[in-house]
């Protein structure tokens, strides 16, 4: 039998209902693995004590409701450190919020609690979700379970490593420019960024409000779907959430037309990553799906537009952290000193860099040249995608140009930003996208996972699950 902590949600739910294990045994197996491996991997910033009442209540539900109990009942999950759980610290891996204790549950947490899910701990990330490696965490980086000399990706790197190393059954992350999908690809698991507005961000520490979405990191497509179904839906507490069917009903055909923008896959993508991609496309063709060549010319400037829009929103969202009401509070001579000291001591280097960049692109004299131009490029990109979807159901390319890199390899900011080159488009267009494992490539004798990235039109998550299932 598979070890309890190595199970998927579906396997664990079945084992719980078949009385092959209890909720307590499942929790203990995950917690033991987390305590054993965390000193090496640093996936968790904190592993929670067992919540006896929640464990007993989940067991009772499974005992009384049996097959009709929700699949997530009794399942231990890991939660990214920027999602609020009442009474627990939510630091966003920043010194600024090191001692900040959440005063309420995020909507996604409320929904998961109602489903009977359990929370194992809060996972490491890049500070305020800014980065692609967890190297920007104020509390030290997470290591990739496939090779501990390499990064797990980021910013949801702690969640990805925890799932890949079986230190939990599944996890939640947040995705602003690829922060769920890129670490999922680097750790060999499934990561979903839902449609903008599909999942409530109430209780998510905001980064880029026109881009952020909460998404699952899981061991299978089905698991990602189970979590997505549990957390999505309209929420009065987040006015950006959308009702079902807002973008029309998508017919899901059994045989998908898969658009591939080959013109983007020339320079900059590793040869063996491309070979893995081709192999997976063959697999999809054999499963009856059709490959179509498409063109998305604005994609080449998407990253530049993203690095204008995102910092603009970051500098706005992080303006609230000033040492007055909560968070790190340093005191100086004047009130202005209080603000400056608190923010300078509280924010790490990358966070300060992006705040400066955001301040710049929004400043008088530059807003036309940068921000409005980027917003226009974003609108054109979205139209290009909508046009492409007239001839295909989903669009596919590799999630990242290369497998996980070594710690310190990308120490200039720009080279780190280029990690997101393929993933940012889905955040800019608001469309859902998933990263699914597509095999491994070898680096220095180690097999490193790589992922295929699939995008669908707004609210067509089901097409992603259909395409993804063909690969598993």
């Amino acid at each position, binding site marked *: 039998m598979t070890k309890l902590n190595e199970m998927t949600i579906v396997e664990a739910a079945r084992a719980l209902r078949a009385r092959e294990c209890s909720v307590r045994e499942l929790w203990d197996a995950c917690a033991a693995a987390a305590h054993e491996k965390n000193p090496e991997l640093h996936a968790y910033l904190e592993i929670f004590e067992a919540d006896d009442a929640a464990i007993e209540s989940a067991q009772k539900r499974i005992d009384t409701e049996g097959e009709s109990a929700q699949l997530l009942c009794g399942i231990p999950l890991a939660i990214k450190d920027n999602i609020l759980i009442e009474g627990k610290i939510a630091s966003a891996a920043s010194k600024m919020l090191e001692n900040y204790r959440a*005063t309420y549950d995020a909507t996604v947490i409320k929904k998961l609690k109602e489903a009977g899910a359990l929370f194992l701990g809060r996972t490491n990330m890049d500070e305020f979700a800014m980065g692609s490696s967890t190297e920007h965490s104020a509390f030290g980086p997470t290591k990739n379970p496939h090779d501990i000399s390499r990064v797990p990706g980021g910013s949801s790197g702690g969640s990805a490593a925890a799932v890949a190393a079986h230190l939990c059954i599944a996890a939640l992350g947040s995705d602003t420019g690829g922060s769920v999908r890129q670490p999922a690809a680097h750790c060999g698991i499934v990561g979903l960024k839902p449609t903008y507005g599909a999942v409530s961000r109430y209780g998510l520490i905001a980064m880029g409000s026109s881009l952020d979405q909460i998404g699952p990191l899981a061991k299978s497509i089905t698991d990602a779907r189970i979590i997505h179904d549990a957390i999505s839906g309209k929420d009065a507490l987040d006015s950006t959430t959308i009702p079902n069917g807002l973008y029309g009903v998508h017919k899901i055909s059994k045989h998908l037309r898969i658009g591939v923008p080959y013109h983007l896959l020339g320079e900059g993508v590793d040869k063996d990553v491309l070979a893995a991609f081709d192999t997976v496309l063959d697999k999809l063709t054999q499963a009856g799906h059709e490959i179509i060549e498409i063109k998305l010319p604005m994609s080449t400037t998407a990253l*530049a537009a993203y690095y204008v829009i995102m910092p603009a929103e970051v500098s706005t969202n992080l303006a609230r952290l000033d040492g007055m009401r909560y968070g790190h509070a340093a005191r100086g001579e004047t009130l202005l000193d*209080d603000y400056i000291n608190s923010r300078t001591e509280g924010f790490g280097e990358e966070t300060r860099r992006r705040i400066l960049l955001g301040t710049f692109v929004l400043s008088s004299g530059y807003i036309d040249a940068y921000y409005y131009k*980027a917003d*226009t490029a974003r609108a054109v990109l979205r139209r290009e995608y909508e046009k492409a979807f007239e001839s295909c159901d989903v669009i596919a390319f590799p999630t990242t140009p290369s497998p996980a890199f070594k710690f310190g390899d990308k120490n200039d900011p720009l080279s780190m930003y280029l990690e997101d080159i393929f993933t940012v488009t889905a955040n800019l267009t608001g469309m859902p996208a998933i990263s699914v494992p597509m095999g491994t490539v070898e680096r220095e004798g180690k097999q490193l996972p790589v992922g295929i990235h699939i995008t669908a039109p707004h609210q067509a998550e089901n097409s992603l699950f259909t395409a993804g299932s063909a690969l598993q």
Partner: protein
Amino acid sequence: MATTEDVKKLAALARIRVEDTELEKFTNEFDAILSYIGQLETLDLHPASCILPPVLRNVMRVDGEPHQAHAYTEKLAEQFPSREGDALSVKQIIQHD
């Protein structure tokens, strides 16, 4: 080209401090990033013709009390950096010269 003075000015606007020791590094990195995002300038795009009006949706909610009065008061006050009883203190804003 960004200068160290530009970076200092932005830092002042953003209420953060860039130490003198970091200033040159920050300025150089800033320059590299600006030159990358500068590729946007080469695009021949006209906002009026490209940005379609968004699909407008009115977001309504019931006009009632979102939660019981005082339900969160104590929890929020606990996070306050400086507190004496029910007084939450910050530095004096108006200076009496």
